[in-house]
Every structure is written in structure tokens, then in C-alpha cells.
């Protein structure tokens, strides 16, 4: 074998080779290690022995969420008393049960619990990981008594090719969340929130005029959340992110332009969205909790997060429907969460897991729907969502009746949202990659007064088409 030639006719000496290899190896290690630490492990520590079935379940509230944690533990205790052959081992994975990087790491590392939490949009990732179990034959009215009442749309998000891979436990759709206090101070009608984007713009100006660092309206533009909200907002105008066949980007049009133009005008013409931009989920909600945000696009559970995680108060918040351009919104973005089952579980473990979910998540009067228990606590009762049960079903009626009877938030504050339902659309394919592309456009119109919207949309469209053409996520 010939050695590589070096200038001046020198050959590379053996020690030199070793040095090169050693330094190069050390140099590239960090980047590679980021992607490569994904060895799968089958050690889950759960079993079914001696007639007792043990399952591990995640998303147990963390210690700082005292009441939620106490509720969870009480649920486990009661459930185990009612089902002495089942043992639930709870695992906490943080306040945000599905922080995407952590979730991916658990999934790829094979360290998820037997029954693990995920978003409705996680199905493809979960399937690709090979970590999920087909539970079609186990999910029925026997294991989950309210199964027939569960919303078909929610169930569909955990189903592929007729096979069920998960059970929905919460759903949401987006609307306009607003601060009643700031509305009052700005002389706005608390009972009548803005229903169109021009109305939002006018209201934002009035709220921002209060000064003291208050943003009339606040918007995300970083960490893929900018693209997420762009999606919700273009849906509200009747637009879509990709063509029906999912092969081409479809936001470089007057509707996409309208979304960005409105935000740019609010930032630089009206100066009503605050100077600090590049906001992500916790940034915006921190400001909201501090009473510095008049309005933002969000789901009803955003108010729960503001109160339980960001020191806000329920009585400050209300919600209206997603605004449209000239009238009601044409659609809004929706999603939700649920539980998957880890591959390799025994029949008994799957049935035990379903029984637990049925008890804690899908039974009116129990677990998350135990409104009698939640009423005196700092947990909201009376929010319009989740609305997991089909309207008109028995479970829907029971849940609604108990919710209204035990409401601890002012139900009327959410009536504009609840009484003006907007069609729900789900996220586009390759959602995270496309959101990352749109972050650039969102951040540009919120930080650069000279941002060229046409150019931004064209660039984003080209990039999104690249993502869609190459599979983006590789799927």
C-alpha cells in the first residue's frame, strides 16, 4: 500500500498518523455523540409475576406540582385498591411530559415506560422507533368502558391503517386567549373579544398604550413555535401549509402574506407586540403570568400553564374564538395527547394499562375529570376543553354536567370560545421541519422593519419544498 505523498517528498510518519487519528477522533466526537447515543435497551423492569401485573406509567406530576401530584398518587392508590392484581409504578418526566428532545431520547434509547405519554402528532415518530405496540385487539368497551363515546377524530390520530397504537386523553384547538384585567384597563369589552385580525390589531394598540412594558398581543418566533403559530394563523384565513397531496408547500400566497404583514404592522407600525421577540412557549407564558401580555393565540390549557407554572391567576384570563380576516375564522389548528404502549408488553400488562387510562383519563368523575376534587384546588374546572367525548354521548353529558356544577373558573369567560366553534385542522406533514423553516419568516417580520415579506415567503416556500421533496424527516 502506498503512503500518501506530502509536500517536499516527505511521507507521513507512523507517529504523525497516530496523532492525526487521535486529534481527529477527539475533534469530531461531540457532534457524532449527539446523534449516536441511541442504543436500545429492553430492560424495562416491569413484569407480571405471582398473579400481580406491574406496569410503569409516565407523566406523573413533579414534586413542585403539589396538588396534581397528590391527586395522581391518590388515583394510583384507589386504582390499586380496586384492582389488587395491578401495580402501577409512576415515573415523572418533567413538568412538560413531552419535551421533544427528552421524548426523542427516551424513545430512541428504549427507556420509555410501559405506558408512555405522547402528542397526537408523535405517531409517526413512535412507529418509526419500533417501540410501540399495536393494541387494536385490546381496546374496546370492556377495557375502556367509555371507548365508544371517545371522539372519533381524536381516536383517528392514534390509528394508522386500521391499527390502534394509542389512546387519546386530551385534545385542544386554538383560539384567542386574553387578559381580562388589561382589557378592562384599556377600555375594551371583556365579554366581546376581537373576532377578526383587524379587531385584534386595534385592541392590541389600546392595550399596548397602557405602557409599563405591556404587549397588546404577543407572538412566538423561535424554537419552531413561530412556524407552529404561523400554521394556526394561516388556517384561520382558510389557507393550508401544504397541498392536498402533501408534496408542495402552499403558504406563499396572499393568505401567508396577510399573516406576516399583520404581525409586521403590529410590531413596527403599531408597536403593540413588544420589543422583545424570539419568544418561545415559556417566554411568552412567563410574560403572560406577569400580566404583561394582552392577547395571544393559544388553547384553553394555556391558562392552566399560566397559573400552575407561571404564577398567573385564573380570574385574569378569558378566551375567544380564533380570529378570522373578515369574519369568523375558517379553521384553527388542533392537537392533543394520549398514551402509547411499549412493544413487548404481555396481554395482561396492556389490559392493566388500558384499565388505568380508562380510570384516570376517560371516566367522568374520576382522575382528570374528578371535578369535585379539583374544585377547591388551584386546578381549573370549567374550561371548555378537553372535549374528548362525542357530543350527545352519555359520557359527554355526564362530564359536561359535572364540569358546570363544579366550575371554579368563570365559565362565561370561555363562552365566546365555546359557543363559536371553528373547524379544526391538524398539523402538516414534516411539521417540525416546516415550522423551523417558518420561524425565520416569523422572526424576520417581528425584528426587522425592512423585512421583505414576499422574499421571506419565497425563501420559506423553496426551503419547505426541499424538505418535502427529500422527505425532511427522512420519513
Amino acid at each position, binding site marked *: 500500500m502506498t503512503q500518501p505523498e506530502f509536500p517536499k517528498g516527505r511521507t507521513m510518519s507512523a507517529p504523525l498518523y497516530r496523532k492525526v487519528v487521535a486529534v481527529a477522533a477527539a*475533534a469530531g466526537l461531540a457532534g457524532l455523540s449527539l*446523534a449516536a447515543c441511541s442504543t436500545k435497551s429492553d430492560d424495562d423492569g416491569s413484569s407480571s409475576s405471582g398473579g400481580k401485573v406491574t406496569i410503569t406509567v409516565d407523566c406523573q406530576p413533579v414534586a413542585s406540582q403539589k396538588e396534581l401530584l397528590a391527586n395522581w398518587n391518590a388515583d394510583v392508590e384507589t386504582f390499586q385498591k380496586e384492582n389488587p392484581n395491578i401495580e402501577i409504578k409512576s415515573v415523572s418526566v418533567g413538568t412538560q411530559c413531552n419535551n421533544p428532545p427528552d421524548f*426523542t431520547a427516551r424513545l430512541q434509547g428504549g427507556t420509555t415506560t410501559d405506558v408512555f405519554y405522547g402528542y397526537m402528532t408523535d405517531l409517526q415518530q413512535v412507529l418509526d422507533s419500533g417501540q410501540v405496540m399495536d393494541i387494536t385487539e385490546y381496546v374496546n368497551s370492556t377495557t375502556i368502558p367509555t371507548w365508544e363515546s371517545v371522539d372519533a377524530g381524536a381516536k383517528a390520530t392514534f390509528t394508522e391503517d386500521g391499527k390502534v397504537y394509542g389512546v387519546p386523553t386530551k385534545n385542544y384547538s386554538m383560539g384567542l386567549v386574553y387578559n381580562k384585567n388589561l382589557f378592562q384597563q384599556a377600555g375594551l369589552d371583556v365579554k366581546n373579544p376581537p373576532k377578526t385580525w383587524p379587531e385584534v390589531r386595534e385592541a392590541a394598540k389600546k392595550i399596548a398604550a397602557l405602557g409599563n412594558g405591556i404587549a397588546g398581543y404577543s407572538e412566538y418566533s423561535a424554537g419552531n413555535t413561530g412556524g407552529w403559530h404561523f400554521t394556526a394563523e394561516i388556517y384561520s384565513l382558510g389557507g393550508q401549509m401544504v397541498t392536498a397531496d402533501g408534496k408542495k408547500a402552499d403558504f406563499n400566497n396572499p393568505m401567508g402574506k396577510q399573516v406576516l404583514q399583520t404581525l409586521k404592522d403590529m410590531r413596527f407600525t403599531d408597536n403593540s407586540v413588544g420589543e422583545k421577540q424570539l419568544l418561545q412557549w415559556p417566554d411568552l407564558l412567563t410574560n403572560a403570568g406577569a400580566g404583561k401580555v394582552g392577547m395571544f393565540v393559544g388553547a384553553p390549557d394555556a391558562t392552566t400553564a399560566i397559573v400552575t407554572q407561571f404564577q398567573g391567576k385564573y380570574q385574569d384570563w378569558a378566551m375567544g374564538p380564533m380570529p378570522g380576516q373578515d369574519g369568523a375564522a375558517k379553521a384553527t389548528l388542533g392537537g392533543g395527547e394520549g398514551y402509547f404502549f411499549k412493544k413487548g408488553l404481555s396481554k395482561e400488562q396492556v389490559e392493566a394499562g388500558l384499565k388505568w387510562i380508562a380510570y384516570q383519563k376517560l371516566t367522568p368523575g374520576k382522575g382528570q375529570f374528578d371535578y369535585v376534587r379539583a374544585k377547591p384546588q388551584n386546578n381549573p374546572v370549567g374550561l371548555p376543553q378537553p372535549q374528548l367525548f362525542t357530543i350527545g354521548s352519555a359520557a359527554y353529558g355526564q362530564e359536561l354536567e359535572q364540569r358546570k356544577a363544579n366550575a371554579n373558573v368563570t365559565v362565561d369567560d370561555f363562552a365566546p370560545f365555546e359557543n363559536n366553534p371553528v373547524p379544526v385542522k391538524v398539523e402538516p406533514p414534516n411539521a417540525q421541519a416546516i415550522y423551523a423553516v417558518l420561524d425565520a419568516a416569523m*422572526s424576520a417580520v417581528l425584528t426587522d422593519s425592512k423585512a421583505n415579506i414576499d422574499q421571506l415567503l419565497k425563501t420559506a416556500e423553496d426551503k419547505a419544498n*426541499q424538505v418535502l421533496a427529500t422527505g425532511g424527516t*427522512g420519513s
Partner: protein
Amino acid sequence: MATITAHGKPAGVSGPRPEPPARRQSRRRRQLQNNLTGYAFLIGAVVCFAVFSWYPMVRGIIMSFQRTRRGETTWVGWDNYERIINDPSFWTAWKNTFYFTALALILGYAVPFFVAILLNEFRHAKGYLRILVYLPVMLPPASALFLFKYYAYDPSDAGLFNAILNFFHLPTSDWMQSTTMTMPAMVIASTWMNMGAAVLIYLAALQNIPGELYEAAEIDGAGIWRRIWNVTIPQTKLILSLMAMLQIVATMQLFIEPLILANGAGTQDSATSVAYLIYQHGFFQNDLNGAAALGVIMLIVLAGFSFVYVRLTSRQD
């Protein structure tokens, strides 16, 4: 003159007699016993490197040629590389990373060296000054960066840097919200966080320079810059080149600064680095294989820098 035989031994000089096998064996055993403690110490490091460094690296290279879908892993040749090179942010990430590296070489490399020279000149309070310079290194990087994010780089006039600029009637900046200031702002924060360690290393090197060299230069009429140029820099050349190499390797792996200061990609992708793009693909876009491919590309680029460094230092040797 001794005659050389065909076997290459001088005639009349007999070579060492071959040892009997039993003696050879016992000598080897003795050697092994002597080295046993050394091997025992070594094994911990070897296992750690093997498990936490070499294995992930080899696995990363393998993964970059595979694709896992529906739990099935298949070999896909160069597909992941093709996909990652076609990623809309691929070239932007490289451009940003090289820009950061270049800026860090100008600012983050030169500043600690001159601070070290300055500290070396002090006759009093040397220890206190060293602690002062080293203090930021003791802060967890995330905390230090949050300090910059919320107090120094606040785009309003309440921000520390804007308040200072205002005081001197200079134009203020949007800092992390400006496409042009994002990178310089990240370099400033990164330099502040990391320069303490570099200063100490430079100080150690400076203190090894014989004082008579400076005295001779002074007698020859050399001023401060001449002394730095003709004495300090040549005398610390080896450590300077090593630090340059380490700096390039470290800055090319730019990650935590964009993640915290710019919430990831920053304004219009102005903060996206290669390492951040790896993170995006691996942990947000369900694309660990693409992330592995980008990791391998980064390995090759850094290996290039390392090769240049090894060549340069071997010539110096």
C-alpha cells in the same frame, strides 16, 4: 576498522546469546507483574473512552449510512448525506459556524492573550486579579448565558449594554434580534465565559519565559510592542498554536450559545450552527440518521483542521 559481516555485525564481536525459553518467560512474567498496576489504572480510562466516546462515534458513522423506519433498519448508502446537504439550513449553518469561529479567533483568541500579558506585568494583587478573570469560568455556562440574554442583551434601553451605549450617546443595538449583531454578541458572551481558563494557561507560559530575554530586548531599545512581537510571541508559539487549534475545534462545535441566547436559530437563521442543526434533526425532526450524517461531515471538517495543526506543530518540533 572493524569489518562488517554479511549479517551486519562487526567481525569478532559476538551478539547477545539467545536466552533459554524458561528465562525469557519468567522475564516476561516479571515485566507483566511490574506493569500490572499501570494496566489497572489504564483500564478505567480505556473502558470510559470505549463506552462513552469510541462506541458512539463508530455507531454514529454506521447510523449515517442507515435508515430506521417502523423499527426496521436498512442500509441506504449516501441517502442521509444527500438529504442533509439538501437541508435548507445546511449551508447557512456552516456559514454561521465559520463566521463564529473566525470572530472568536479575532476576539476570543487575542483578548485572553493580551489579558494574560497585562496580568503578568502586574506586581501587586496578582492572585486577586487571576481569580477575578477566572470567576466566569466557574459559573455554569447556561447561567452565564442567561445573564447575557436577560440583562446584557435586552433590546430595550433597560439592557446593560444598551444603557452603557446610551450613556456615551452611542447608537444602541437589538443584539440577539439583529441579524448582524447575533454572531458578535454570541462571541462576546462566549469569550467572557471561557477566557479565564485560557488566560491562566497563557500566564503559565509567559512565566516560563526567561527574564533576561526581556532585559536584553530592553537594552537593545525595544518598546513594549517590540518585546511582545520579538520575545513573547516566539517564546509562546507552541502554546499559542495549541490554543488556536483547541479554540477552532471548540468554536466549531458552537451549540449552547445559540440555544440559549437566540432560542435556537435566532432571527432569520442568523444563529443556526452545525451542532444546532444536528440537534434539530436528531431531536425535533425524527431524523437521527440525518443527524449522524451531519456529525460525520463535521468530523471530517474538524479532522482537516486537526491535520493542518499536526502538520504545523510537527514542523515546529
